[in-house]
């Protein structure tokens, strides 16, 4: 087989190898070097895969040479490739940033382990996006989750331990629900291959075990996705995890769960089962709206900015699930494109916060007073990210909002459009609060140590911030591909 044919496997194996080698290292900087190399290779691979999928259709890779549906199949289609690209790009941006930040926040003897866990997490996330086997998804889900728990527990604050524990309980319940759902499906259909499952479920139709499986899967994935009100693990986990971890997780982990949601709702179960068997769209819409308002309102009252942004993430996930609930071309495109858009803006925001933590050592609002004068670039990144969260035209946030609103109106739900725009008004309040403090308050930390962060941290942030503007204007790479993925998902909808 040529190298190009091996790419789907390499996408997952390279970070796995990287993780194993990192585990053998004792020096953090060596481990960082390996993680950096692997992270830079990832977008190259996923870029080639994406180009291949867009021009020639889905790629299938038979692991171990066993043909599906018996063997495990790695299957890259438009949606999967889109997600691979997202995860690997964020990973590649995070790694240069990570070194200094990790050196500041994690003790030297644990740094090699940190990079091991990071690469394992990357492996898991990429694996979920690439595999075409339902049980394999569970394995990768747990690989990424277990490493995530460890990463979160590495936070400096002792509450990081509690958050990791809390996440572990919730996450395991979620994953177990997922396996239960898969088990039910397996006992009904006798297959685990996603493509095969799709065919067989459409033969069976909405029978009771299938609907039960759907319910279990939906709840399980919703836990991972932090769908309101199953989000309680997320704010603490994001708030107390090391800054790098927060940025990475916020940009990727929940997105992968959304991918699973899309995969199961639209392709495995198919629109006919999901939308006729259970009131899935109605539930999703109601919960999404609750998330958009509830979580945003809570965000307004947070003093820890990481926590504030974490609640904002819950709200933004609401937008994504709203698009799923709309289930029409424009709405779903809005949801899918918001996956990548939200990853960009939240990545930028959390990296900016991480930079402040690097210099000031705190993420409390009052410690940000006047910091815009000492760290103007970092705070410009924060401001741009914030504008994107608000959905200002010219940023990626606006593109998502436009699609969602048009999707809502296409259904004739003008009230939903108003709710959508009204909820972004709440985000003006919490972002505006921070912006006022960083630019217009007198400087609190007058020490000379508070200045711009090293270039390796600054450049990734600036790149992401630029991306939030660039992809707000040229959307061929984001909305264009998302649109094609949506066409694929909606193929079953008559």
């Amino acid at each position, binding site marked *: *087989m040529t190298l190009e044919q*091996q790419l789907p*496997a390499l996408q997952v*194996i390279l970070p*796995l*190898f990287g*993780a*194993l*080698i990192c*585990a*053998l290292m004792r020096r953090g900087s060596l481990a960082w070097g390996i993680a950096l190399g692997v992270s830079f290779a990832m977008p190259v691979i996923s870029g080639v895969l994406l180009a291949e999928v867009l021009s020639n259709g889905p790629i299938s*890779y*038979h*692991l*171990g*040479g066993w043909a599906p549906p018996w063997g495990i199949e790695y299957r890259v289609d438009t949606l999967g490739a889109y997600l691979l690209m997202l995860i690997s790009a964020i990973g590649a941006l995070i790694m240069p940033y990570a070194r200094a930040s990790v050196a500041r926040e994690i003790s030297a003897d644990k740094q090699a382990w940190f990079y*091991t866990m990071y690469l394992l997490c990357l492996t898991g996330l990429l694996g979920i996006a690439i595999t075409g086997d339902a049980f394999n998804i569970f394995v990768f889900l747990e690989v990424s989750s277990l490493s995530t728990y460890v990463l979160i527990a590495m936070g400096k604050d002792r509450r990081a331990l509690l958050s990791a524990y809390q996440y572990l309980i919730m996450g395991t319940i979620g994953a177990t629900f997922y396996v239960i759902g898969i088990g039910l499906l397996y006992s009904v259909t006798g297959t685990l291959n996603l493509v095969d499952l799709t065919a067989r479920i459409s033969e069976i139709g909405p029978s009771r075990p299938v609907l039960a499986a759907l319910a279990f899967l939906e709840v399980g994935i919703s836990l991972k996705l932090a769908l309101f009100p199953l989000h309680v693990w997320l704010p603490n986990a994001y708030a107390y995890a090391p800054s790098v971890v927060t940025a990475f997780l916020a940009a990727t982990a929940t997105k992968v769960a959304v991918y699973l949601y899309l995969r199961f709702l639209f392709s495995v179960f198919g629109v006919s089962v999901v939308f006729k068997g259970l009131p899935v769209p109605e539930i999703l819409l109601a919960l999404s709206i609750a998330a958009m308002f509830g979580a945003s309102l809570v965000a307004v009252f947070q003093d820890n900015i990481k926590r504030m942004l974490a609640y904002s993430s819950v709200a933004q996930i609401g937008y994504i699930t709203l698009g799923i609930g709309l289930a029409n071309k424009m709405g779903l495109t809005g949801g899918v494109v918001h996956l990548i858009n939200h990853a960009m803006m939240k990545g930028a925001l959390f990296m900016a916060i991480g930079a402040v933590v690097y210099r000031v050592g705190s993420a409390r609002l009052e410690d940000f007073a006047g910091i815009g004068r000492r760290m103007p670039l970092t705070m410009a990144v924060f401001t741009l990210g914030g504008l994107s969260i608000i959905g200002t035209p010219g940023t990626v946030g606006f593109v998502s909002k436009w699609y969602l609103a048009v999707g809502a109106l296409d259904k004739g739900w003008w009230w939903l459009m108003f709710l959508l725009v009204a909820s972004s008004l709440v985000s003006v309040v919490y972002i505006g609060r921070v912006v006022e403090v960083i630019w217009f308050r007198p400087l609190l930390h007058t020490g000379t140590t508070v200045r711009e962060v090293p270039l390796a941290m600054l450049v990734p942030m600036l790149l992401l911030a630029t991306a939030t503007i660039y992809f707000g204007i040229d959307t061929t790479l984001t909305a264009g591909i998302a649109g094609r993925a949506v066409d694929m998902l909606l193929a079953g909808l008559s």
Partner: protein
Amino acid sequence: MKLDLIFRITTKLILPFILMFALYVQFHGDYGPGGGFQAGVITAAMVILYAIIFGLPAAQKVVPARLAELMIPLGALIYASVGAVAMLLGGEFLNYSVLLSDGPHGQELGILLVEIGVLVTVAGTMTAIFYSFAGRGR
């Protein structure tokens, strides 16, 4: 303690048999129930038993904590390398058939190597878990 003596002697006596049984389970995995997971746990049980009877320091003299920790990625690395070798030989990842010119024998060899990897990792993991819990809170 007198009872202690009986424990010590018995342990010393059965340790080789535990290891032997582990290896049996390991290599019989081809033909019957068994394999690297079980063998790894049994191997670790040997170390753990030794540690319980003779104390943690004595056990760590035989199997240092660092070794146990190294075994974890090492075993997985053996596993993954077999897959990678298969890739280099032109097959898919973990396609053992290409390891030897004869497909089924290649499968056999591949599984054997992979199971050794599993043994190493599982034994290492179990021992490491035991060490880290036993070594705390004194």
